[in-house]
């Protein structure tokens, strides 16, 4: 029987201390322990990107990160994007551009898009495609997603950012 280990983690600005088995994955901490079910568990094998969160400033697939490796780290999930009732510019743009269909890939798409724009605020269309390369959408909604990210990069949602 495996011992429990203490995990200290900051998620969406809130500090948590919990005890987990070593085999616990980051996505399990986020969804099952903390109840933040915005992050989706899709393929569960690092292929689909639906579980993408930002860990210490980098997009990672939370189904493929051991929770204990995130000890002392800072996680941003889709729930952390909006400020109160005010949606994040990316979320508003996704709505305006019809970038949701079934919505399953959306949390991961948003987090990959956020990580991209944090690193490169003015990406080209090719760079946007590269930025969401690790996120699958099975409704074939890529074009609207790319347009939505481009609109934010072009500054069309700057009002909302202030």
């Amino acid at each position, binding site marked *: *029987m*495996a*011992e429990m*280990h203490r995990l200290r983690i900051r998620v969406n600005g809130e500090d948590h201390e919990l005890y987990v*088995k*070593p*085999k616990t*994955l980051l996505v399990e901490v986020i969804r099952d322990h903390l109840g933040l079910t915005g992050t989706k568990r899709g393929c*569960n*094998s*690092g*292929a689909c*990107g639906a579980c*993408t969160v930002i*860990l210490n400033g*980098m*997009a*990672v*697939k939370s189904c*493929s*990160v*051991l929770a*204990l*490796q995130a000890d002392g780290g800072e996680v941003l999930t889709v729930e952390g994007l909006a400020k109160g009732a005010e949606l994040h510019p990316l979320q508003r743009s996704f709505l305006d551009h019809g970038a949701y269909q079934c919505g399953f890939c959306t949390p991961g798409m948003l987090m*990959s898009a956020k*990580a991209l724009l944090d690193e490169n605020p003015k990406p080209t269309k090719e760079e946007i495609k*590269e*930025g969401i*390369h*690790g*996120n699958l959408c099975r409704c074939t909604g890529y074009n609207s997603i790319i347009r939505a990210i481009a609109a934010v990069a072009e500054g069309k949602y700057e009002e909302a950012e202030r």
Partner: protein
Amino acid sequence: MIRDFHYLRPQNLEEALGMLKEHAGEAKVIGGGQSLLILMRQGLVAPEYLVDIKHLDELNYIRFDQDGLKIGATTTHRALEKSRELAERYPIIPEMERTLASIQTRNWGTIGGNLSHADPAGDPAPVLIALGATVKLAKADGFREMPLEEFFLDYFETALEEDELLVEIAVPPISPRTGVAFEKFTIIGCDMGIVSATARLTLDEAGKCKEARVVLGGAAPVPLRARGAEEILGGEELKEEVFEEAAQKASEECEPISDIHASEGYRRELVRVLTRRMLKRAWERAAQG
């Protein structure tokens, strides 16, 4: 379902090696876990102890000296992709990294983990072998070094002993008039490559081929040097016909399998086409540099 294991978090390399010695045969090392966790979830690997080295910053470095390049085992793919100095001095490494899996995987996955996983379809190994890389393996009582191509023994099997850890990859300086090219064939962009080909050509002052290396991924149980193809190229006046002949030889001497992704014949044809294209690209690059 991942089976329970004991989690060990060493504070430094020395402690990590001590843990591996103490639990030899029962322990696996985890870097970023981008490959290992998939195998553990499938139940293919179920270690009693997991030694986590991901956080060991003493193995996280990209350094240059007169002997060339040194990469620490816990360096991430993303760090290799983004290194400006690498882009200047070993541009093929960031070029290869840009198409390795996805950004998320490159952000967390380590080069040491990738090589130790020893998937013959992995991207870095053929490129590093083409560059003449060596690896440094550490144990509690000392180090040893070997050419990277000798590190791979079979599918997912390496020369690492049970208590041994890959700690560093060393790449010699690239000779003048050298060109290197790498490409893989995938069905979807972020899939594993079905077959990859890497070519390195070094020209002499007259523009003839001084040295050639052709390394294939996904075409044998290990990353494979196509030595027959290399022999055809060595000393030759390079032209399309020579590339075609070498590519044909490579497709004959490799040992691909048939699986759900591609048949043996399809893989051989990919080897032929990609090898020819990479030789030509490497030649053009060598002529420029």
